[in-house]
């Protein structure tokens, strides 16, 4: 749920990057951090293990700018993808406003993609939310893999009803990184405008 801070004149939103381990969630945040101008971003925080796997979360605050005298801000989080960190994933999803689901194009990870999406649905249920309640988009990452699965096949597994916007990406090369973020931010803002 978005938060308004009248004293600081800010409206804050929480966007979570979700997906299986090693699908590129942290890479997305690092690329966003590198590409966004200094005045629009805060410090990036990563709670990672020594071998740079996400242990708890990565965090990056972004300032969109001022509208009607209120700053609009997005707090971006990643969750740890590894299966055994589910408690952490659940905590990060608290009060989420939007989700970017980062899928892996490798054939060997198709099942992990599906499993992670199922896990997302289950964890949202803990907060009495359905995935359809939360603005979300799908990023199919690692399109440069030589054996990358057809994007349509991955979509068929993750979004057979074709309800979500889908973006192909090579996050490590900054391809398809801003587009899903922009799309989910638009959905989140539209939802706020509809409900207000």
């Amino acid at each position, binding site marked *: *749920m*978005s*938060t*308004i*801070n*009248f*004293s*600081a004149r*800010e*409206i*804050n939103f*929480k966007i979570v990057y979700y997906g299986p381990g090693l699908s590129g969630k942290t890479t997305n945040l690092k690329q966003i951090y590198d590409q*966004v101008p200094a005045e*629009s971003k*805060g*410090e990036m*925080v990563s709670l990672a293990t020594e071998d740079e796997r996400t242990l*708890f*979360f990565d*965090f990056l*605050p*972004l300032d*969109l*700018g001022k*509208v*009607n005298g*209120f700053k*609009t801000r997005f*707090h971006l989080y990643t969750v740890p993808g590894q299966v055994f960190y589910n*408690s*952490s994933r659940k*905590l*990060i999803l*608290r*009060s989420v406003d939007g989700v970017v689901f980062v899928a892996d194009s490798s054939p060997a990870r198709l099942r992990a993609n599906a499993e992670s999406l199922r896990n997302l649905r289950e964890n949202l249920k803990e907060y009495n939310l359905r995935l359809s309640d939360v603005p979300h988009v799908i990023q199919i990452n690692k399109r440069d893999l030589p054996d990358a699965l057809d994007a349509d096949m991955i979509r068929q597994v993750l979004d057979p009803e074709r309800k979500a916007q889908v973006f192909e990406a090579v996050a490590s090369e900054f391809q398809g990184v*801003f*587009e899903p*973020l*922009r*799309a989910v*931010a*638009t959905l989140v*803002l*539209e939802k*706020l*405008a509809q*409900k*207000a």
Partner: protein
Amino acid sequence: MLEPSLDLYGATFDAVDGILHELLAKSRARYALIIDRKGFVLMHARAMWAPKPPSLDSFATLVASNYAANRAIANLFGEEGFKETVQQGSEVGTYLEELGTEALLVTVFDSGAQLGRVKLATKHAADAIRVALEATPEEAPVIEFNQDWSSSTAALLDGLFGTRKP
């Protein structure tokens, strides 16, 4: 849905601001912050003599996450939460009090402050803030989310991330 975590505006804001500064004076702490449990800073106060604080966004996110993790640990043992959350380094420490179900009051102190005094002043401040929040709230300021607002935010998104491709 858009909601303030706490009704911090108008006279309530002024009252709570006064409480935070009194807390700093009594405890000799560096900073006092009210953050919501999602990790957003709601209010903060800094002692006149204190050095510039680190990024408050990062600090608030880490405190809220740490609080949530500690609560999950307590739940594993059948506890609802831990009664005290104190962290002490060789130079700097933090002390945390809950403010209802949505927010946290955090005091950051250094070795010049006594932990006992920090705890007592923070507990008193938390009580006073709860009372201030329970007073009859003023009507919240109104924000218009009209067509102008939507166009302006779309333009800002274009500015930050590039124009949306059809």
